[in-house]
């Protein structure tokens, strides 16, 4: 294998428990998003568009769909002779399977993968966020600052700062302190969970951390504080742009709705920064004479006979005559019968909404409804 300047390690093993039934059989990065994509498409496309061709994807929780989805990476132009995408599940050594217990230990266990390329730099990413970013710019910043580690940060509203991992910096953007969910935040620069390390430096730290039985083997909680303690150069890379964690039903719904907002910074129609995905093969969408479609995004393979308003409709969805879909996200291959009413809901893949069913937030509450099989069964009976 040829030597690489920078190898990306994409952490895609998370469970996403706050997404309930959506992640019951599906890892969070494989969750459908934006009418056509899966969450991981953003990070993978960012790698491809940034010229980072060697990407290790660390899977763990419910990896079947994710592993076969990624395949050999052709969809993101990551099917390369030297490098490309490699799926890295946990594996057994001698007598036991070594599960990934923390973000740092997951990287540590894949040293052999990284040694193949002997990179100068390692880019740590997660597959949980929706954003467009040129990692090459961050790498150049890291090199220019002669840093041992760079952490990408984004300004968050002060009122929300206590929900994030906050980086306290000096005027030169050196990180002097890291505070996880501080009650009284000293700064409003939140960690995006994107790190660049000099591989030699990271390797040493991981070895040390592995021997520490009190450690949770987490980048944010253990590795970064270790670096700061040792007075290594850790800098903050300021990112400006749209960045959203879609770890809850509410935030997933909001991020989808953001795509319908003209003023939103998230532009998926930018031909200079395409978001690649595995394209299923469908005929173009068909809008019937009875349909009314307003302010919505509709993908291929849909047959629409009802009213769609301010909604995101994924591929292969059928909406029957007389049905109304408002402010909702209808995931791939879901079917909606006739004269149904759906408002402010997420309808997961393959769910069949029977004719006449009404789905909307409870009286007085505003929460997004995540439709489940149980709800459908209850309605039928």
């Amino acid at each position, binding site marked *: 294998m040829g030597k690489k300047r920078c190898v990306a390690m994409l952490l895609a093993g998370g469970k996403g428990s706050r997404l309930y039934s959506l992640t019951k059989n599906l890892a969070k990065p494989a969750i459908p998003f934006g009418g056509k994509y899966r969450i991981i498409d953003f990070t993978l496309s960012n790698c491809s568009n940034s010229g980072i061709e060697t990407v290790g994807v660390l899977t763990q929780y419910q990896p079947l769909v994710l592993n076969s989805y990624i395949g050999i990476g052709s969809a993101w132009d990551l099917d390369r002779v030297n490098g490309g995408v490699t799926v890295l599940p946990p594996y057994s050594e001698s007598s036991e399977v070594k599960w990934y217990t923390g973000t740092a230990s997951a990287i540590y266990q894949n040293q052999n993968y990284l040694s193949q390329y002997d990179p100068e730099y390692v880019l740590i990413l997660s597959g949980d966020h929706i954003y467009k970013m040129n990692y090459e710019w961050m790498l150049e910043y890291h090199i220019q600052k002669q840093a041992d580690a760079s952490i990408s940060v984004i300004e968050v509203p002060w009122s929300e700062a206590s929900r994030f991992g906050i980086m306290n910096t000096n005027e030169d953007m050196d990180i002097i302190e890291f505070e996880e969910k501080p009650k009284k935040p000293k700064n409003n620069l939140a960690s995006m969970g994107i790190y660049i390390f000099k591989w030699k430096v990271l390797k040493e730290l991981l070895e040390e951390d592995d021997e520490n039985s009190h450690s949770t083997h987490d980048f944010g909680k253990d590795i970064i504080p270790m670096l700061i303690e040792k007075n290594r150069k850790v800098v903050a890379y300021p990112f400006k742009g749209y960045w959203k964690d879609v770890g809850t039903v509410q935030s997933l719904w909001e991020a989808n709705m953001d795509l319908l907002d003209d003023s939103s910074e998230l532009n998926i129609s930018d031909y200079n920064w*395409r*978001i*690649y995905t595995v394209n299923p*093969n469908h005929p*173009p969408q*068909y*809008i019937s004479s009875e*349909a009314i479609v307003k*302010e919505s995004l509709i*993908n291929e393979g849909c047959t629409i006979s009802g009213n769609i308003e301010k909604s995101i409709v994924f591929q292969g969805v059928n909406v029957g005559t007389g049905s109304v879909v408002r402010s909702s996200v209808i995931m791939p291959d879901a079917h909606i019968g006739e004269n149904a009413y759906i408002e402010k809901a997420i309808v997961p893949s393959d769910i069949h909404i029977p004719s006449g069913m009404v789905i909307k937030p409870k009286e007085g509450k505003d929460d997004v409804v995540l439709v489940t099989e149980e709800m459908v069964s209850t309605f039928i009976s």
Partner: protein
Amino acid sequence: MLKTMLGVIDATTYHHDLEELISHRTLAALPIGGRYRLIDFVLSNMVNSGVGSVAIFPKYQYRSLMDHLGSGKNWDLDRKRDGLFFFPASITDGDSEGIGSFNQFAANMDYFYRSKQEYALVANCFTVFNMDFNPVLIRHLTSGCDITEITNKGDSLEVYLIKKSLLIDLILTRDITGYTCMKDVMLDLNHDYKICHYEYNGYAEKIDSISAYFEVSKEILTAETWNQLFIKERPIFTKVKDEPPTRYTSTGEVKNSMIANGCIIEGDVENSIISRAVKIGKGSRLKNCIIMQKCSIGEDCVLENVILDKDVMVGNETVMTGSKNTPFVVRKGTVQGALMNS
């Protein structure tokens, strides 16, 4: 030995009546159905019928066809053994009368000699249909035919099934027999070959004129035809493009239309087929139109019975009307302003 078929697609045809749409790109590459090219139908049918080796013989302006097909990956024909073969014709060859020109095959005999398949399916590139060719092979074998011609509603579909060794024979003896193509053999009464016909009952339409192209496009919008062409178990494959989902705004109404991805629809669209990355401005009204890729239609336009080839820009307040049988066709890349006449 397994009774297997190889596929041969004759993509040399030039129908003069389609001149405005095929002067710069070969007929096989004609965009149709919002996201397909004409050749996708016969090519997908072959692949869905289990054919793993397909040779395409193009002639004129085949750059976009070559770009569309690539290595054949999208039709599962990017293989280590067999797969997709592309044999452009020499322009100095004369036009042949019918499908399956023996002169053209003669220039590429290696393909036939090296293929392990026993039977050859020789087809045209311009028929819109979704058909399984296996029943044709079975009938061909059980009836002991030499050549089977597939017909639809009594007319020849210009798709022939023939034993490969016989085809090779016909190619090599063409100067003696005077047969220039498959059709010549079918029409001649002087040979001993057993000619059979297989009548296919499903939807099958040849695109040999602008009006046929327009008619067939309208028919695709009906459930009856749609269900015969877009079958889940036998999908029509095409080149994959990374376009975002289509955006519908607060203005504009779409009725009975087929819309590909990457479009931004702000106007009214009725009974139309809109290809990918098309923009339709506020206040514009389209009826019975076929709009190809990346066209941009401004605001307050009226287009009725119009075919726009790719990359056409239509300025604000332009009115273009064709008639039901003679649609108004705009060539690729043209800019149309408000003062242009029908």
